[in-house]
């Protein structure tokens, strides 16, 4: 079961790569500007043996994971408050909606100023950008909780907090988890972009800036893209694993939907 899935994934990836190679080789996309995928892939492989590159990736991944973890905590806490404290929720939603569309890119100088170290700056940007999908999915999921289940809880005399903790949150959890996976992708994009746009002492993006210092190195940049994608893929797979373990009830119930 799981094996077929992996095999299919590999087939899919190969198909996409082959297609991209053909598109570039045939010049459908300007082949002078970007190198063929095979070249990029080769370069990605050689990069994996470069200790400087690996150190950069380690820096990036560290900031990413810490930022994501913080984002989950912050978003869940804010989500709980917004979803359960009525007098605070309406007014704070305005603030949330105001803050949400502000791009982290615009905040880079401010973040640089406010946070001493490079890593802190990156973490703060991830936190800012990655919280929103989790928060919004959570608010929608809280809305989607079966009222009969909540009533059942309430009828036994449990207070609003217990209802929240024991009914609303568990029932919202699977969708929040989807939000976390969305956020993971956004977080990686933000951290590498921030490194590329503002530099720093270490990280995948900084490695790419240095690599681009001689020009004509599009393949390195694209190889960086490949590695970012691979990291995203791995973390997504891990998160799905965790989800499947934690929400067995959910997946068992919904397994049949997709045929």
């Amino acid at each position, binding site marked *: 079961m799981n094996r077929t899935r992996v095999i299919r994934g590999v087939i899919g990836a190969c198909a996409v790569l082959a297609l991209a190679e053909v598109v570039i080789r045939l010049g459908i996309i300007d082949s002078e500007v970007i190198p063929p995928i095979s070249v990029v892939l080769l370069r990605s492989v050689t990069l994996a043996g470069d200790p400087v590159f690996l150190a950069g990736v380690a820096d990036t991944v560290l900031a990413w994971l810490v930022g994501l973890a913080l984002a989950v905590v912050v978003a869940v806490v804010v989500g709980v408050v917004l979803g359960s404290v009525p007098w605070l929720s309406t007014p704070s939603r305005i603030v949330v909606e105001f803050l949400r569309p502000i791009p982290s890119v615009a905040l880079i100088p401010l973040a640089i100023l406010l946070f001493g170290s490079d890593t802190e700056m990156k973490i703060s940007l991830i936190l800012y950008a990655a919280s929103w999908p989790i928060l919004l999915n959570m608010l929608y999921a809280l809305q989607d909780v079966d009222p009969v289940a909540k009533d059942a809880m309430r009828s036994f005399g449990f207070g609003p907090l217990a209802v929240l903790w024991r009914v609303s949150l*568990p*029932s919202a959890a699977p969708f929040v988890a989807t939000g976390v996976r969305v956020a993971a992708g956004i977080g990686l994009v933000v951290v590498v972009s921030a490194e590329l746009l503002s530099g720093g002492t270490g990280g995948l993006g900084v490695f790419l800036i240095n690599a681009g210092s001689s020009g004509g190195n599009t393949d390195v940049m694209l190889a960086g893209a490949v590695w970012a994608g691979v990291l995203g893929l791995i973390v997504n797979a891990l998160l799905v694993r965790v989800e499947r373990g934690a929400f067995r009830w959910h997946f068992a119930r919904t397994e049949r939907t997709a045929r």
Partner: protein
Amino acid sequence: MLEIANLTHTYGSGEKAHRAIDGLELSVAEGELLCIVGPSGCGKSTLLRSIAGLIKPTGGKIEVGGVTVRQTPDNLAVVFQDYSRSLFPWMSVADNVAMPLRRRNMDRTQRMKVAQEALEQVGLPSASGKYPFELSGGMQQRVAIARALAYRPALMLMDEPFGSVDAQTREDLEDLVLQVRRSHQMTIVLITHDIDESVYVGDRVVVLSKAPSRVVGDLRVDLPGPRNQISTRENPEFVRLRAEVGRLVRGVQPAPVL
């Protein structure tokens, strides 16, 4: 125990307003088992939810144990008509049953023991480790009953609690409720569509009119206890009461369908 005065509830407003209950008066004594029967859609579940403080009726007053109901009264348990949605899908059956016991200052072992006992009482000794979706409809309904029974509330509200189980199990559950009520001094309000059942388990049967509902009949059931599925149902008084309730229910029916 339970005092309802001039209860009125209207769903929605403006054109779509629907008056479900209209000036309903009812009182239930401590330890009594009251059965409520009435046509489908008349407002029985609405009444139950009002007593449980789950909806705020638009008019009138409900007192439980002398206290006006604003939120859910303490020491209450409800078996919902929509039992399958009232179970928590992320918890095993045992956890579902044990959940309310957290309010009873029991440690986990105790809770699990009580839950297992309750599950055995409803005929599900081996369901504890399963998830609700792995059970049949009737089994889910019994889990909901077990959850309410294990909680040992002072006031138990049951909305068609035996609708999805077979005849034999139904009788067993009726007897179970009677027995638990006896041994734990519960007050029970039980909604049912089965007229025989209402007379068999009830100390009193209240018949509601079609919506907007009012009380159209209030019969005291004077049958010797403890009741017995065979002898009680053969008792002439039982037969008389059953016919009486039937007449009342039919009397309030809308024009026959078709």
